[in-house]
């Protein structure tokens, strides 16, 4: 298994007793130091994959390693270096936020008890929960619960964070704070696997992306590489759409489409400035011209389909 991959899997598969294949032979490659956006529609197998990675469930087939160590054999040594949020926060409702973190720290045989109180409060402070640390978890709002789960991953320095939808339920300020926090952690060298269905989140903080669909990893790579795979389109705003379309076709642009006063087409190999020159030469009035890269949403929908139904 490669050392420069923080998470690596080969043919990782989980077939449930019901016969449903939730994860189907995926080869994850999360580079060390990356912020890896783990995308996919609801029910596409993201959480099951995370459970497999952490050793909570056993794979039907395949192997994987975390931080270069084979799992689940090396779990005792590796998992203390991994902070994880799996399928939302879960704590004892009748304990305070601080006491819940103390319990998790007490369960960690590798944690230093003499620094426990300080580390717990530092973690609470980092997620802005220190003021509510003494409140019972039962009284926490969804956003506060989410913050507490995040704090639990920060009880000690980690080399890898595996976070399942960490901004779920947070208000816009909270979402921004969490993004800033993840950015700071990543800048410090922590690898982050961020499971999400928020594309804006991916665009803002991820360096790499993996897309799940129906239990398969349908795309994986750096964000820039994936973007490059989708072709940019030329967009002409004009008073003479028919004329513009004729010119674009004449230049050899494919996939020309007209919507009202806007004509778009795939740029292909043609240089954009030549398109404008050709339009002007043919007296097509140009009100606006742009070359747009396909956005992440289109790419995502292209990979996982338009359907609104969750993947069964």
């Amino acid at each position, binding site marked *: 298994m490669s050392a420069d991959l923080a998470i690596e899997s080969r043919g990782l598969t989980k077939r449930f007793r019901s016969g449903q294949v939730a994860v189907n032979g995926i080869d994850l490659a999360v580079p060390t130091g990356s912020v890896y956006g783990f995308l996919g529609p609801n029910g596409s197998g993201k959480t099951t994959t995370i*459970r497999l990675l*952490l*050793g*909570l*469930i*056993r794979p039907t087939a395949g192997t994987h390693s975390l931080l270069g160590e084979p799992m689940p054999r090396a*779990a*005792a*040594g*590796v*998992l*203390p*270096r*991994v902070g*994880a949020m*799996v*399928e*939302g*926060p*879960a*704590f*004892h*409702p*009748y*304990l305070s936020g601080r006491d819940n973190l*103390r*319990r*998790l720290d*007490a*369960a*960690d*045989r*590798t944690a230093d*008890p003499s620094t426990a109180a300080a580390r717990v409060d530092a973690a609470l402070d980092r997620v802005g929960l220190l003021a509510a640390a003494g409140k019972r978890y039962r009284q926490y709002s969804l956003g506060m619960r989410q913050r507490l789960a995040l704090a*639990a991953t*920060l009880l*000690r*320095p*980690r*080399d890898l964070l595996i976070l399942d939808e960490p901004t779920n339920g947070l208000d816009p300020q909270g979402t921004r704070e969490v993004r800033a926090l993840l950015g700071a*952690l990543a800048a*410090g*060298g*922590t690898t982050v696997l961020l499971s999400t269905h928020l594309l804006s989140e991916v665009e803002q903080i991820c360096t790499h992306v993996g897309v799940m669909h129906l239990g398969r990893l349908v795309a994986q790579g750096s964000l820039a590489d994936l973007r490059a795979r989708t072709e940019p389109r030329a967009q002409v705003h004009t008073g003479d759409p028919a004329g513009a379309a004729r010119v674009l076709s004449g230049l050899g642009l494919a996939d020309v489409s007209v919507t009202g006063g806007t004509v778009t087409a795939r740029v292909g190999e043609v240089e954009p400035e030549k398109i404008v020159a050709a339009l002007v030469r043919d007296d097509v009035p140009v009100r606006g011209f742009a070359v747009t890269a396909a956005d992440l949403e289109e790419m995502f929908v292209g990979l996982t389909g338009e359907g609104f139904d969750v993947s069964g």
Partner: protein
Amino acid sequence: MSAAEATVTPTPRRVSTRFFRSELWLIFGRRRNWVGMAVLASVPVLITVAVKLTSPGPGDGPDFVSRITGNGLFAALAALTLELPLFLPLAVAAISGDAVAGEANLGTLRYLLTVPVDRTRLLAVKFAAIVVFALSAVLLVAGVGAVLGLILFGGGPMLTLSGSQLPFPAGLGRVLLVCLYMTACLTALGAIGLFVSTLTEQPIGATIAVLILTLASEILDVIPQLSWLHRYLPTHYWLAYGDLLRDPIALGGVGAGLLSAAAYTVIFTTAAWARFGSRDVSS
């Protein structure tokens, strides 16, 4: 917190009691369990006060109760005897049924396992906490009974079931032996509870299952036609603690009871380990 600090593989401390202490704190700090303990403690209070108010003559009422007026220590034994069929098993069933199923139900199980807590260690800590709870519950009942009994009726030599007299310290020792024996019996029940708790994500369901098992065992134990079955029932030897109040101590029933408890404990902790060690945690 830079990642560089963490790159060395952390070394676990060889012996750490932190998780175990945290578990005890979780059990004994929980308000629900305080209420349970208060209920357990109310029985010896009721008995001693009732006896004080009515002062039954000798031969009136259950054996131990009638002896309380002679020696307050018997309040402890009377309370234990009354609570053994239902209240004490209920308390142990609640705690042991909650052990794994409670964490699974809340979802905290997945977070404990990713800390990571080794699954065998998790079960060992949960089981040890059940044993401590069982001992505490028994000592609470006996302690409240003994203290209140001694205050209201005084101490003195203990009349054994064989009819002889034991000096007060020896009598106190016998009561402690009874407590330890009952703890062993309840530990076996706790082991069953721990196993049931690994089967479900519903702690109440696990508790009810253990309680039904206890009551079914007690019912089967009084059906004479099933006498061949009796010695295999988990509750069959529970009342054998009377042996510890003879002079000298008779070991027949108690010995068999300890053997039965040990067998149940080994079988069901092993079953819990086999079941939980390989289970997918999807809660």
